[in-house]
């Protein structure tokens, strides 16, 4: 397989973006990504678009977005992997270049979730999993899926609601430093504990917001990187993908996500690194419990120890491994199709030491970063390792 680099990134402001439609929102990311790579739409042979859709009017978002960005005629795919859709779109574009089939590809992640009301968004997300057996009669919501894990995890390992709240407090701290984040405001443990219950034991501030946003990256082969004289390419060193059952009751336990364990082991092996080599990471904190399980699934600590890493500040800047220092899904927001691509944009900037403000820059020694993007409740998982 050929080496593949990220040579251009773009990222829209995340938030309630009813000032733009899906095409215009995608354009906000595609333009800077192509500009940074020094390319025009005519140079792009393959585009992979990650978007769930259903909450906005266009059923064929890839076509709508490609047309608007002057990419009509390009080889085009739309990808779905629930909340890991963005990473799945990266995977598709990565394999196209790694295989030698094309030498350049473009990934666009975009989601417009605020065109429907909150309860409809809750319904559309809740239906995604095992509709017939877990939604039709039982109305299980997406916060509900993770709440089932939170209840089991807390009971098993003795983590408290305060421990979960600390994840939100940390990620809001960094979100407040990120001008592109949906919620740029610090919160306290008390704010989290006193917010209303969404799906017990998860409260409003345990949950990521419903967000609009887009992100884009340009990928290129090693030959193209040389030809284009790219200064600081960031290499995709490893990608792992795995999946879990749709029906939760088919699973063996509710304290971790098997798909994340498997995907990460594939990615580590491919990149030739171990968990202790990772210097900065973005993990899928759609809910506070999800970030804690992610530490354990990724091997950053043993099972049942994740909440202690947060307690001890090990995942803040200055700690053992800074995690979600762009605010994470929790504060930056989670525009589903864009999230995985947004992780690549953030980590590319971290690896290039270009993060602004620089107080949000992780210290780098060996330049190894990891993105962990979960679809559903471990229905899908993608782990991507980047190196400079």
């Amino acid at each position: 397989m050929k080496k593949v680099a990220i040579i251009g990134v773009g990222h829209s402001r995340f938030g309630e973006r009813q000032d733009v439609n899906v095409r215009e929102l995608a354009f906000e990311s595609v333009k800077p990504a192509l500009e940074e790579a020094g390319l025009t739409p005519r140079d792009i042979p393959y585009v992979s678009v990650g978007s769930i859709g259903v909450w906005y009017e266009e059923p064929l978002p890839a076509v709508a977005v490609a047309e608007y960005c002057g990419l009509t005629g390009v080889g085009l795919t739309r990808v779905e992997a629930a909340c890991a859709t963005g990473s799945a779109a990266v995977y598709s574009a990565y394999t196209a270049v790694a295989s030698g089939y094309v030498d350049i590809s473009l990934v666009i992640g975009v989601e417009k979730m605020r065109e429907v009301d909150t309860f409809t968004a809750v319904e559309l997300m809740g239906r995604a999993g095992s509709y017939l057996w877990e939604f039709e009669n039982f109305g299980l919501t997406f916060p509900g899926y993770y709440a089932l894990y939170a209840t089991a995890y807390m009971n098993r390992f003795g983590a408290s609601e305060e421990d979960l709240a600390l994840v939100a407090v940390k990620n809001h701290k960094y979100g407040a430093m990120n001008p592109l984040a949906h919620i740029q405001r610090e919160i306290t443990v008390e704010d989290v504990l006193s917010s209303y219950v969404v799906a017990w034991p998860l409260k409003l501030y345990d949950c990521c917001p419903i967000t609009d946003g887009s992100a884009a990256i340009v990928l290129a082969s090693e030959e193209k990187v040389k030809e284009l004289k790219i200064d600081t390419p960031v290499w995709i060193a490893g990608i792992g993908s795995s999946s879990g059952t749709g029906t939760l009751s088919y699973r063996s336990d509710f304290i971790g996500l098997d798909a994340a364990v498997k995907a990460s082991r594939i990615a580590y092996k491919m990149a030739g690194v171990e968990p202790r080599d990772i210097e900065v990471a973005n993990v899928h904190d759609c809910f506070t419990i999800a970030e804690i399980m992610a530490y354990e699934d990724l091997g950053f600590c043993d099972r049942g120890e994740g909440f202690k890493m947060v307690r001890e500040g090990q995942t803040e800047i200055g700690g053992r491994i800074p995690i979600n220092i762009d605010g994470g899904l929790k504060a930056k927001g989670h525009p589903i199709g864009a999230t995985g691509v947004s992780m690549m944009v953030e980590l590319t900037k971290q690896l290039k030491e270009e993060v602004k403000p620089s107080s949000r820059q992780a210290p780098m020694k060996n330049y190894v970063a990891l993105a962990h993007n979960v679809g559903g409740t471990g229905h899908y998982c993608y782990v991507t390792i980047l190196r400079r």
Partner: protein
Amino acid sequence: MSEMPTLPSRKLEISYHIPINKTKKFWDGLREGKIYGVKCRKCGKLYFPPVADCGECYSSEMDWVELSGEGEVLTFTHIIIRPTSFQDQQPYTVAIAQLKEGVKALAWLKDVRRKDIRIGMKVKMVPRISEEGRITYEFKPAEKKE
């Protein structure tokens, strides 16, 4: 919703007609007060919810097996913020239980105060016709054996 100018799209109401031909005995069973799983005749794997084809050994020879419904709560949540199509329901408790026969099941847990629910509590899964007339099943606290 935002104050930005928007154009409301045309409305579309969708209801899917989900085929249950191959699992009809399960739905008929609920009406008769029974809860069925299926067991693969070839590899012996027991499934709940039931399936027509075994994903383990690819056999389609399945036997219907009545389940006791007896089990223990593994985890639970109270759904306070409900989806659009559950807005007319009061907040509900969803639990996953380990059934005696070895499979797990997910359903609403009813007839128990929220503060009395514990992981490990004994429950029984029973069929129920909902207020809307849908055939479903739910957990109830198991009868205490004297």
